[in-house]
């Protein structure tokens, strides 16, 4: 559904920000995009909804070349929630804020009203009804930003640093939400630094470093490879670290455990075996 073919991008001639990007994202995937600051993650992701057009190569969304269409057109298919919710909020009431995207994309008044109510409910914001978005707390504003992009029901959803400034409960809610979005028709792309979150949320991990793709595959495998972690300025998730250190002490300890439950079971087995 999303195809990057030999994509290169530079803001100014001679200074490439993206090079040789070849990438295919299929529906049904929850993909993580990681990399050091300045690697080009945001630049890459902006190509998906046409905010940026490639200098070389081409980007296709549902077989349409992004150069043949506009960001507004692509907004029907691609939803983009930016890192800072305050960069989006402008309306006088929550309803108007959520309705903004829907109205821009030409939904009927009835449909707009329906979806506004539905999504305010989904994100637990209904009780703030006709209030100003600016009176909400930081976490609530983030939920409002999410609601106003989700209500369009795009097939592709891009979230830029969704866990920033979120506490543990909020992150759990986000994980639940991501799970509910996971289905054969949707693509979910998470740009993040948060390794603990990534390893729980994504099925596929892509690492961008210095404008080039250096890894694309299993999150667990990639987050245990020191060289990649180093390039992307990441630290391995605690459980991944644990599994590898355990394997050093106990060669039979499985290093391919991916979830908390699997790790618990592996340790239990090890201890039982020692009796």
């Amino acid at each position, binding site marked *: 559904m999303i195809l990057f073919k030999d994509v290169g991008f530079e803001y100014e001639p001679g200074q490439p920000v993206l090079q040789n990007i070849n990438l295919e994202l299929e529906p049904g995937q929850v993909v993580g995009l990681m990399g050091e600051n300045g690697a080009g993650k945001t630049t890459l992701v*902006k190509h998906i*909804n046409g*905010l940026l057009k490639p200098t070389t190569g081409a980007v296709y969304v549902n077989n349409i070349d992004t150069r043949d269409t*506009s*960001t*507004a057109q692509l*907004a*029907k298919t*691609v*939803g*983009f929630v*930016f890192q*800072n919710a*305050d*960069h*989006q*909020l*402008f309306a006088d009431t929550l309803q108007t804020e959520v309705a*903004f*995207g829907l109205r*821009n*994309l030409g939904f009927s008044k009835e449909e707009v009203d329906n979806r506004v109510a539905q999504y305010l409910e989904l994100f637990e914001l209904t009780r703030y009804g006709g209030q100003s978005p*600016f009176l909400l707390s930081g976490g609530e504003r983030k939920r409002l930003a999410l609601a*106003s*992009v989700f209500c*369009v029901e795009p097939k592709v959803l891009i979230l830029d640093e969704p866990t920033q400034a979120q506490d543990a409960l909020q992150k759990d809610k986000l994980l639940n939400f991501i799970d509910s979005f996971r289905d054969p028709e949707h693509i979910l792309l998470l740009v993040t630094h948060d390794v603990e979150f990534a390893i729980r949320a994504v099925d596929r991990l892509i690492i961008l470093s210095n404008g080039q793709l250096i890894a694309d595959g299993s999150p667990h495998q990639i987050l245990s490879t020191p060289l990649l972690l180093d390039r992307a300025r990441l630290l391995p998730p605690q459980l991944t670290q644990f599994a590898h250190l355990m394997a050093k002490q106990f060669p039979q300890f499985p290093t391919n455990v991916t979830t908390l439950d699997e790790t618990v079971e592996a340790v239990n087995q090890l201890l039982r075996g020692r009796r």
Partner: protein
Amino acid sequence: MAAIFEAFRFKQKATFMHSLDPRTTFFMAVSFSIIGMLFLQIIPLLLVFISMAPFILLARSTRQWFKSLQGLAILAGFILIINSFFISFSFAISTVLRLVVLMTAFSLFFLTVHPDDFALALIKMHIPYEFAFAFSMAVRYVPTIATETETIRDAQMSRGLELERGNILQKVRNYIPILIPIIVSSIRRALQVAESLESRAFGSTAKRTSLYDLSLRKRDYAMLLVTTFALIFALYVAFVVRIQFPFLLPDWFFWGLPF
């Protein structure tokens, strides 16, 4: 149109012009502006402009200055048309030339003087610290706000906002979803910066000292002298000679296009 700001964006370079005390550069900018305002004839204005060119070259900032010129083109074209229509083409050209001279004079200042050095200069000239600081703060955050504006614009366009759609009234309204987040964000930022300043004893009652100091050097005195002479000479020609002894001025001084 945003290209017009290129000639006013400071870039750290090691040139003669950059090494001058900001007060010197400021004096030069003001003097050149005054000289530019003294004349309305094409040839003198061209001469003034040509005399400023070496300074732009010395500051190694020709590319930036030229970009600004391009940005100025629309405004210049507008002035050209209006003045040609109402007065004469010759007059229009001289007005445009004046505009270029003024722009160049001040870009010379902004290109080579860092806002904080300017703030230091203001303080040396006994302007209260708070004003000088407010000014340098504003300049320091301009690039930050500019970047944020682009992000906000991207975010709203990603929600289907089309800036170019609709009649002129609609087009103005299209900018509201961009303007409001900029304002709100800037207010938030101002509060954060203020908190940070307070936390570093800004506004403390003690008399403020500074790590660096400005002092005028030989080159500054030289430039000040040269500029003063140029200014006096220009004033002399513009007032004394032109009014009392116009016959002393060569014919080409008054040359203008016949239309």
